[in-house]
């Protein structure tokens, strides 16, 4: 009788998952250390230079955002690089581990692992940098607060959006980051055009050189809603915004994970 993936411990075994995790960390740690050293120097230097010009409350938040999003997307795009390299792909594909273990290990390293690593890195480098600024110039920026709500929100947004780049990493053989960025931008433009087209088809009779405002105002005036146009428009749009929020927070990442998982299972070497 044929055995299948879901039998026994073949589907997910914590020991194997930890081994894969250790391997993934171990493979990337040198590049990460080099990148960290370079970025540390950059942060300390620019923090000192900008401190001379005056206090900037957003300095470390801006640095963190760039490291998290740009760096994280690049790291996520490289996650399955070995899958597309002729010499390495067989090695990865025959490494004992189920698809779930292999995928979740890459996911954990590039999502939560990278976000937490960046958070810790920025906190330490920020503290060191501010110590130097205060010691040399007697002034500096605010200290980086890793528990700030804006920072935590950025991490949440990253955890969702990086799934797109992880999918790109599974799909694209070369320059996955650029190709994924291109597709995301293309999709955004296409989405915008579709919305504009729908808007035009619905409201085309009312579009004239004066714009839509006189027409909207006339409607609200007729109905006695004078002075509350913006609030009413907000009510009209809010269901769509809620839908977009639900799609973003709860649907986007799982869909990307599923696509990546199935693509991974179909990969031939």
């Amino acid at each position, binding site marked *: 009788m044929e*055995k299948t993936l879901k*039998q*026994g411990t*073949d589907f997910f075994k914590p020991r194997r998952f930890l081994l894969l995790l250790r391997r993934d960390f171990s493979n990337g740690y040198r590049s990460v250390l080099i990148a960290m050293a370079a970025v540390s120097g950059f942060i300390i230097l620019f923090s000192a230079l900008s401190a001379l010009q005056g206090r900037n409350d957003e300095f470390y938040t801006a640095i963190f955002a760039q490291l998290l999003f740009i760096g994280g997307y690049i790291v996520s795009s490289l996650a399955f690089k070995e899958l597309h390299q002729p*010499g390495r792909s*067989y090695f990865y594909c025959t490494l004992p581990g189920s698809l779930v273990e292999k995928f979740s290990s890459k996911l954990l390293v590039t999502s939560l692992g990278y976000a937490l690593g960046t958070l810790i890195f920025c906190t330490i480098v920020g503290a060191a940098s501010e110590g130097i600024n205060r010691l040399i110039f007697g002034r500096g920026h605010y200290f980086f607060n890793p528990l700030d709500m804006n920072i935590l929100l950025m991490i949440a947004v990253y955890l969702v959006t990086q799934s797109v780049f992880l999918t790109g990493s599974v799909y694209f053989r070369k320059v996955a980051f650029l190709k994924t960025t291109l597709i995301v931008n293309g999709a955004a433009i296409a989405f915008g055009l579709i919305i504009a087209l729908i808007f035009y088809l619905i409201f085309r009779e009312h579009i004239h050189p004066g714009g839509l405002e006189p027409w909207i105002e006339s409607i609200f005036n007729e109905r006695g809603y004078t002075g509350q146009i913006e609030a009413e428009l907000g009510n009209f749009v809010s269901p769509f915004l809620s839908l977009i929020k639900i799609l973003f927070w709860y649907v986007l990442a799982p869909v990307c994970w599923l696509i990546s998982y199935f693509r991974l299972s179909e990969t031939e070497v």
Partner: protein
Amino acid sequence: MIDIQDLYFGYKREGLFSSLDLKLLPGSIYGLLGKNGAGKTTLLKLISGLRFARAGQCSVFGYVSKERPAGLLEEIYFIPEEFFLPPISQPLYEQLYAPFYPRFNATAFRSYLTEFDLKRGKKLSELSYGQKKKYLLAFGLATGCRLLLLDEPTNGLDIPAKSQFRKLLARAITEEQIILISTHQVRDMENLIDPVIILDEGQIIFQQSMNEVTRRLTVQLEQDRPDDDSVIYLDETLGGYMVVRENRGSGETRIDLETLFNSVIGNREKIETIFSSQPLESEV
């Protein structure tokens, strides 16, 4: 056990295997021979789940190979012709990858490295191609995997290492293991591979034990060029002609792999007739 039934496979529009059947049992070192492009490497990839058949079935130890389940991958060690070793130290490699294989034998691994004359201190990236190959072979043998797939394993090995490789493999194989070696270097595999599988034009055209081969075929050095119908294959050599004929009870002679391969490829129909005939009188 490896069980391939009615398998179809091709690259893009070109078909490679059609209705391929193959059964390999544990306890043997199988030699997979074939001309360039016959599909030897592809067959190894299909068995290890790196390629998917268009139709048919390929199962290894009861697992469907294309699903690449972890339980199966723990039992397979594949060393391709163009391999990869990460640029890390030897102890770190062992530390990272050995735990993936439940029956990995660290003591055996060290002894294999010693036999291959490999120093453990060197980084993997500092090793030569041949040394890297030796390292992988030693690691593969130490994993205790039930299926060892080796694609051109002696390419890049020096002369002493080839001999070491044969000795190690012959010594390391257990009753539960299948070793499948795809190679062009048939002389390196002499006295090691048994049974022999010959692949040609997408078909297994020959799969016999060497014992059966010596019983069915005979090879003789003849001074004059023979022209009778009993000749299956002949090769001009120093001092005459190496002639392969059907063994009709004239005693057993040892046929080398190269001659066997050329005989099968050169006179496929006759070979098929000889090997599909009734058992020899001596066997009855």
